[in-house]
């Protein structure tokens, strides 16, 4: 295969990049020509090369978020030609390769846009709202040292597989950026479903979903109106079916929270 591949043809594109010096200052698009682009180059590697050029010519490089460059850390966060994480299905920005573009293309690059994700600089946004949602309830309380033998909790393969589908979320925020309501419901649904499916997650299931949804609302994310743009851009192709599961869990938990008797000594220590 590779042995017979002809020499790769290099080409030129124009990057039209959102530049914004700080949260308070207005931003604008600026064009940067890029030459000698190899189809095997990743999109972020092209940004590296452009930035080195800017540095040499005494301009400030483009700030962009990135880290693992293998699609798992969820750091990279820009929209390419209007689509969070750019062309291609089931990949993050760092897994976009220049072979997805044609010679002469004008490639529009901008940060994820949502009220709950304020811009820090250029293509970098603040996503700590996601951490706050996790802190509110995105966990199973399992004190270190108190765990029973792992095989004492059986989990059927079907449940474990489905939980894993949800747990694959990388917390990048593309779902929010793609949604016209800037809803974080796919993100919340993924965590609620992962933990709510597992037998270990049952004791806190109601508390979890109520707390996470409340925090999500407080952070300024919108709600789902069933357009499914979120799952269409999700780099881990997490399905919007989990949003249905979230809604079901939420309604049930809300209902039960009104009905359930609460022990008079709840919250008191032993």
């Amino acid at each position: 295969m590779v042995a017979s591949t002809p020499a790769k043809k290099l080409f030129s594109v124009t990057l039209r990049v959102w530049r914004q010096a700080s949260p308070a200052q207005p931003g604008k698009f600026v064009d940067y020509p890029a030459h000698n682009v190899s189809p095997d180059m990743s999109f972020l590697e092209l940004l590296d090369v452009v930035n080195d050029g800017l540095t040499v010519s005494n301009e400030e490089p483009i700030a962009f978020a990135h880290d693992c460059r293998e699609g798992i850390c969820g750091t990279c966060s820009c929209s390419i030609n209007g689509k969070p994480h750019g062309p291609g299905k089931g990949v993050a920005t760092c897994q976009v390769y220049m072979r997805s573009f044609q010679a002469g293309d004008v490639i529009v690059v901008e940060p994820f846009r949502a009220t709950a994700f304020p811009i820090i600089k250029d293509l970098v946004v603040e996503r700590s709202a996601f951490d706050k949602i996790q802190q509110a309830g995105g966990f199973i309380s399992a004190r270190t040292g108190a765990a029973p033998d792992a095989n004492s909790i059986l989990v059927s393969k079907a449940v474990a597989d489905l939980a894993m589908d949800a747990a694959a979320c990388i917390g990048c925020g593309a779902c929010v950026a793609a949604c016209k309501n800037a809803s974080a419901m796919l993100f919340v649904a993924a965590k609620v479903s992962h933990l709510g499916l597992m037998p270990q997650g049952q004791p806190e299931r109601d508390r979890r979903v109520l707390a996470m949804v409340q925090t999500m609302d407080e952070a300024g994310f919108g709600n789902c109106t069933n357009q499914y743009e979120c799952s269409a851009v999700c780099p881990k192709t997490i399905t919007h079916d989990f949003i249905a599961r979230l809604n079901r869990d939420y309604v049930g938990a809300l209902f039960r929270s009104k009905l359930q008797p609460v022990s008079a000594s709840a919250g008191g220590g032993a």
Partner: protein
Amino acid sequence: MAKLDSKIPSGPLADKWQQHKTQIKLVNPANKRKYEIIVVGAGLAGSSAAATLAELGYRVKSFVFQDSPRRAHSIAAQGGINGTKNYQNDGDSVHRLFYDTLKGGDYRAREANVHRLAEVSANIIDQCAAQGVPFAREYSGHLANRSFGGAQVSRTFYARGQTGQQLLLGAYSALSRMVGQGAVELHPNSEMLDLVIVDGHAKGVIVRDLKTGAITRHSADAVILATGGYGNVFNLSTYARQSNTTAIWRAYKRGACMANPCYTQIHPTCIPVSGDYQSKLTLMSESLRNDGRIWVPKNKADIKKEPSAIAEADRDYYLERIYPSFGNLAPRDVASRAAMRMCDEGRGVGETGLGVYLDFADAIKRLGEPAVRERYGNLFDIYHEITAENAYQAPMRIFPAVHYTMGGLWVDYNLMSNVPGLFVLGEANFSDHGANRLGASALMQGLADGYFVIPYTIGDYLAQQKPSAQSNIDRPEFKQAAESVSAQTQQLLNNPGKEPVSHFHKRLGKIMWEHCGMARTKQGLESALQKIPALREEFVANVKVPGSAETLNQSLEKAGRVADFIDLGELMCRDALTREESCGGHFREEYQYPDGECKRDDEKFGHVAAWEYQGPGQKPLRNIEPLNYEFTKMSVRSYK
């Protein structure tokens, strides 16, 4: 000269940890809240430590340079985590994992540490399962296992090809829970740039807020570094682009010893380099070697042929040929060097000739494509994204790449460095993997250190200290450290240079890969020790760092990290030059058996080399901690 007391408890190997736990000092629950602990880094080791220490009642401050702890690079570990559950009934035991790890490390790790690691490995699996980590399951609902290199039992637990992600998200959820309760103060986007020492004890850190540029001082009763490895000294590696050595390097410059820095792991199964612009090498999990077969053409004339056009008889399945009992699951260092030998013989494949085939044709024939897809689908997808090739139809091409560093800050049995109050966990320390780490053992060590070791051992130190952190940040030591950080920042920004930082990083990477990579020689290392100081001079004179100190400035971050990499690279070469033997990931061409295997010199080098900083421009001091093997015989490592 640093005092290196390993503090290994006496008594029989299997009882050391249990006895130690009952003998070390405790801090009573009411007093724990008086102590403040700084944890730098939030990968598996950092998150698990911060969460567990907060659960115990300590006040914890967690610092991480990523924008969220969930993005630490443990997230990228693919294959699995070892645990001695013996759920497969295939003869696994604590002793066997201990022995495999010690042997895998080519007898350059401490016996007592490795035994403790094997002992707590089963607890880790329990802990993670209780957190809801969606491990792979059998239809019965029991946990599934797979095999990894260097072991003849099946003891690796996994969550598809994303085990690191799931374990990290488990630790992150535990950490988030404690942040939510107010027990951990979380500082994301915060990079540690100096360690502060007061009266000989680690008492705080200097941190730069990466969003605002603000430089702040933070005090504590103890400081934990869990900041990962330094493989990016090679520029190209499987590490995240921002992984760096700065935290441990600055601690080294404050007196913590750096142990065995030359022990680097080159992973055999990565996607080969394609061009000069390349920023990252992508790993293909070792788990692929369970079912994939590695080969090169027998004849040089065939290397440019389509692999399908090469007859079975003309293929050399060299790992199966040379190491029949371990075959394709030979340990990483062994498999990497074998690949390099094949390429040196002119039998490498691909455009550059730097590649070997990893072939799934037999597995697909045996199991069917759907089964292979279920086991490895995400890895085949990654391969396709990067190379635009379909590995179900033609073999993958793979080549070794830098993946892990076994060296790191020296720690004693309690995971405390030679600087009292400074603890080092996970990949950042040197303690458990000797000269080579086995697959699925990094996740194990990170979580062992964070969940099950430091919560006990830090108490022993704190119980002997008065809680006194509150007033400390006004002390001259803090002021001086913060000023020196600001001065370095200004110096980089004001430098009248012309070249971007990346040029220096690339050049350093080339020097390191050529002279301190998979095979090292005296001559090569000596030449590297000429080239690196020259590169440093050029860096100082000619690096260009645009922008200002008061905003997000990624060039500035990178410049500080690369400056530290240059210094570290020099120390690595010095360490590799001094260690006149071959062991594990450290292969000196002068010291090998006729078949190309590592030739150790236990008499001269059966020790840990712990380097001590002596000031700028001064040669560092080489301290020695002898490795006394009480229970195991250092033997020639064989996987044949």
